[in-house]
């Protein structure tokens, strides 16, 4: 049944050390973003006396339960710059990390189902092309040629009126990505400390000097927060507030199937996105639950609506069995763009608010956040993504290109 051979793992991945008394920098959160940040801190800035603290097990949160889509077809210049840089890093990382994590550039289609969708999508294609991002507009016939199992009949509730297409976009095997970063971090001397929950911060005036954890107190000169859905909880411990709201986001996978789905199809309007994993499962994502939640489970009706949309678009899936569903907590901002930068506490930095699309941003988040932590100032790419934008009004409104409404 398997469609593609999974790569062999290296014999050794990472050590499991006890925390030291002090580090030059502590990264809170051992997901993709935390691991990438530590990797670039070590590689680009020579900071190797650093620790990643993970309350559970490595990359067991949103990194273990996302729909693995990677693309950079965002509307605004700031987003196109950071996501396109991320995509370029994805293209070189398997070699750089010496680890095949099955990055597959099979292309992503974002379907349009209304005239409004069509206009917005064409505008985005134009904006992408101006920013050097590969993007095309496809009519329904071209959509069908690329993905023959899609239903393009015009007698359905929301017919396919076309799609944007980014050929360089695709998917990667998320857990292998985490292991690839973790292995390199370990090689570079980074301590990956699992089962270590942060319970508070130690401050000297307004400057952070240490982290209290379930495995003792750790002194540190710099703290980077990479905790996705739980960023608000950490910020509250540190005495400040973030303009983010946490919501459950659900996805599901089917049993294994022969290869039938050659690309990635996303639909913002009817709210489903589907790709076929390397082993053959159909991976589907839904929208977020409307309410704030930390329960790591979602509403059944959200899955029901997602399945209805999937079956209408892909009639061939009508008899596919669901293998499992899961919910993760995503941290959303009012403009659907992340916050990567300084915090109100000195020497403490925040990387959060990636909402439903943090996986694709992993390399660029790590690169820019590491720069910010090492130098105390933002990188050119994450400068627009500061918290001050909510005060200055320089919002980066990506509700249209974020693909999942939140």
């Amino acid at each position, binding site marked *: 049944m398997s469609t593609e051979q999974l790569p062999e793992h290296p014999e050794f991945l990472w050590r499991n050390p006890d925390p030291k008394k002090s580090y030059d920098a502590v990264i809170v959160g051992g997901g993709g973003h935390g691991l990438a940040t530590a990797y670039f801190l070590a590689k680009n800035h020579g900071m190797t006396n650093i620790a990643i603290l993970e309350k559970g097990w490595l990359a067991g949160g949103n990194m273990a339960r996302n729909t693995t889509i990677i693309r950079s077809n965002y509307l605004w210049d700031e987003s196109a710059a950071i996501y396109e840089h991320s995509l370029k890093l994805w293209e070189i990382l398997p070699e750089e990390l010496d680890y095949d994590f099955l990055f597959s550039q099979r292309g992503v289609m974002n379907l349009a189902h209304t005239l409004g969708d069509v206009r917005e999508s064409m505008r985005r294609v134009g904006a992408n092309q101006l920013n050097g991002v590969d993007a095309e507009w496809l009519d329904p016939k071209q959509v069908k040629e690329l993905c023959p199992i899609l239903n393009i009949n015009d007698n359905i509730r929301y017919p396919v009126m076309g799609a944007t297409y980014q050929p360089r976009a695709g998917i990667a095997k998320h857990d292998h990505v985490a292991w690839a970063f973790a292995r390199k971090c370990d090689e570079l001397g980074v301590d990956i400390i699992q089962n270590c929950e942060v319970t508070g911060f130690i401050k000297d005036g*307004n400057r952070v000097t240490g982290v209290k954890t379930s495995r003792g107190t750790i002194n540190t000169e710099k703290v980077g927060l990479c905790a996705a859905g*739980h960023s608000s909880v950490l910020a509250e411990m540190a005495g400040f507030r973030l303009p983010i709201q946490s919501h459950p986001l659900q996805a599901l996978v089917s049993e294994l199937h022969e290869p039938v789905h050659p690309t990635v199809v996303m639909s913002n309007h009817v709210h489903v996105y589907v790709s076929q994993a390397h082993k053959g499962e159909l991976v589907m994502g839904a929208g977020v639950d*409307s309410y*704030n939640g930390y329960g790591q489970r979602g509403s059944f*009706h959200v899955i029901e609506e997602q399945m209805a949309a999937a079956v209408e678009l892909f009639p061939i899936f009508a008899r596919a069995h669901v293998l499992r569903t899961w919910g993760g907590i995503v*941290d959303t901002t009012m403009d659907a763009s992340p916050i990567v930068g300084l915090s*109100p506490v000195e020497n403490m930095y925040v990387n959060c608010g990636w909402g439903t699309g943090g996986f694709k941003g992993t390399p660029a988040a790590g690169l820019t956040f590491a720069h910010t932590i090492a130098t105390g100032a933002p990188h050119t790419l994450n400068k627009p993504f500061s918290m*001050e934008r*909510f*005060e200055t009004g320089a919002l980066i409104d990506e509700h249209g290109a974020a693909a999942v409404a939140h």
Partner: protein
Amino acid sequence: MLLFSCPNCGPRNEGEFHYGGQAHVAYPTHPGDLSDREWAEYLFFRENTKGLFAERWVHSTGCRKWFNMVRDTVSYDIHAVYRMGEQPPTDLDPATTPANAPAQPLAPAQASNTSTSEGV
């Protein structure tokens, strides 16, 4: 799907309702006096409580009226439902009640103290 007790219509499925975010966020008393930072706090900063949370919902496909609810954001248990203009039951003390809404610095280290414009 959650079951909500609309104060007007009684128990109905979650699907009949729309979410309105944090409850008890009052419009600023003197909007003309607010700094940019205070406006940012009013517009963009909301509590994101892990635990009891006072929030607004509207019964979109029923009476179409807004109401308040105290819900646990971890277990999703509903602890209280009450009308607009009323305060949450005092024994629940969700983190969003006015007395607990803290003043917030917004920008990095240069942030100065400011009074909150939320949660009256």
